């Protein structure tokens, strides 16, 4: 299996959003919200962009404090934590136009989103971009914080992958084997259109094709074989999850 970053519809929409964000009207409205189910490729997509622009990426966690956030930001920017380090952070971000990414930003909403407010203060002054990655369930809590919500210029929702995404992933990632349409459809269905599981399914199908010397693999070759292990789907089947 080839190791490539597949440009899915979600990734394209994310890039589109960034292009619009860069050309925003109000300089201080530089916030972007990325939300969606786990396993849709949010983090990989954001990292793909972040590596390109050299962003400072922070990951929020429960009980995240402003001081910890600032120390982590200093580490990401290679700024030693000493007297006046916060001012140096602000200078560096403004000088090099470094975007800030807050992964798992839902955890940063505690205590009136003090951490996000501190970061927002930095991006306001430097007119830089801040991308917040969070799960959908936190959107309501975020909308209650007016200072942040009003600055969100663009929202990208990572939707379940479409059939074309799965087909593109199969075509781009599989080595020496073509995937028949019926198998692509089955992968799309059984993985619940979750990119993380699609990758597993492609690797399994490819292994079967290689073992049997197939150049094209279809659903009939994978009959009776599981394509991936979807823990949530199993629980739903058993009635544990609604």
């Amino acid at each position, binding site marked *: 299996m*080839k190791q*490539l970053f597949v440009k899915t519809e979600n990734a394209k929409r994310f890039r589109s959003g960034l292009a619009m964000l860069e050309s925003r009207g109000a*300089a201080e409205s530089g916030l972007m919200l990325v939300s969606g189910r786990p396993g849709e490729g949010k983090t990989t997509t954001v990292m*793909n962009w972040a590596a390109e*622009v050299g962003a400072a990426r922070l990951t929020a966690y429960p009980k995240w404090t402003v001081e910890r956030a600032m120390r982590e930001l200093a580490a990401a920017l*290679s700024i030693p934590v000493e007297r006046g380090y916060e001012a140096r952070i602000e200078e560096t971000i403004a000088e090099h136009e470094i975007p800030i990414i807050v992964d798992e930003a839902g955890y940063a909403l505690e205590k009136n989103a003090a951490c996000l407010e501190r970061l927002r203060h930095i991006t306001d002054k430097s007119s*830089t971009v801040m991308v917040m990655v969070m799960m959908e369930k936190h959107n309501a809590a975020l909308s209650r914080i007016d200072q942040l919500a009003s600055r969100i210029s663009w929202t990208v929702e990572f939707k379940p992958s479409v059939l074309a995404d799965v087909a593109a992933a199969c075509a781009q990632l599989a080595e020496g084997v073509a995937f028949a349409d019926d198998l692509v459809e089955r992968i799309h269905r059984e993985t619940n259109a979750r990119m993380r599981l699609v990758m597993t399914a492609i690797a399994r199908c490819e292994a079967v094709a290689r073992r049997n010397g197939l150049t094209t693999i279809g659903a009939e070759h994978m009959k009776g074989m599981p394509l991936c292990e979807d823990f949530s789907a199993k629980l739903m089947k058993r009635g544990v999850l609604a």
Partner: protein
Amino acid sequence: MRNRKTPIAQPLLALLATLPEGTGTRTDLAARMARAPNLITTAALILRRRHLVETPARGLYRITDAGRAWLASGQQLTGRTERRRITRTTGLRERAWWVMREMKKFTVAVLLHTLADGTERDADGNLRRYLCALAKVGVVKPTARRVPGVSPGSRGHVVWHLKRDLGRQAPVCRQRHGTVFDPNSGDTLAPLTTDMEATHD
């Protein structure tokens, strides 16, 4: 005073949007716009930097969804560089360095999965050579653990560990001298005295 030329990026984007599948070759676009092909390349680069067009093949340009959204929004591209535009690091090694700093432990496969989009020439070999050069000067180190690979006969992927985080800017390999330049400190890192076996995945 700087001589200002008529910008053609915006007309080029508009032209691409009208073409079938939003795709056009360099020569075709040059003929349609009555401009030299090198000007088309320059304008296309400006558009590509903003992700408004993409290059599916050499000399071929295609408008992206972002490009169409741009046109639909009625925004105009100006000839000057806007203040708010984020500087982009385009080199694979620079991008890989960013991921290495983030992850601390990584495999070449993980780097490729995050960064490579298939347009790079020998991305795999490029990163391996880079890692080996960094390992020689003690910036990264291969761990004893290997992650199983999917290819038949694969010995697995080496798990690398970032030993020394040099800073935001990616270290540069100086192949001729066998050294690594650290742009963060301005130091040149020489190979470690203890011989290190180059590890291959």
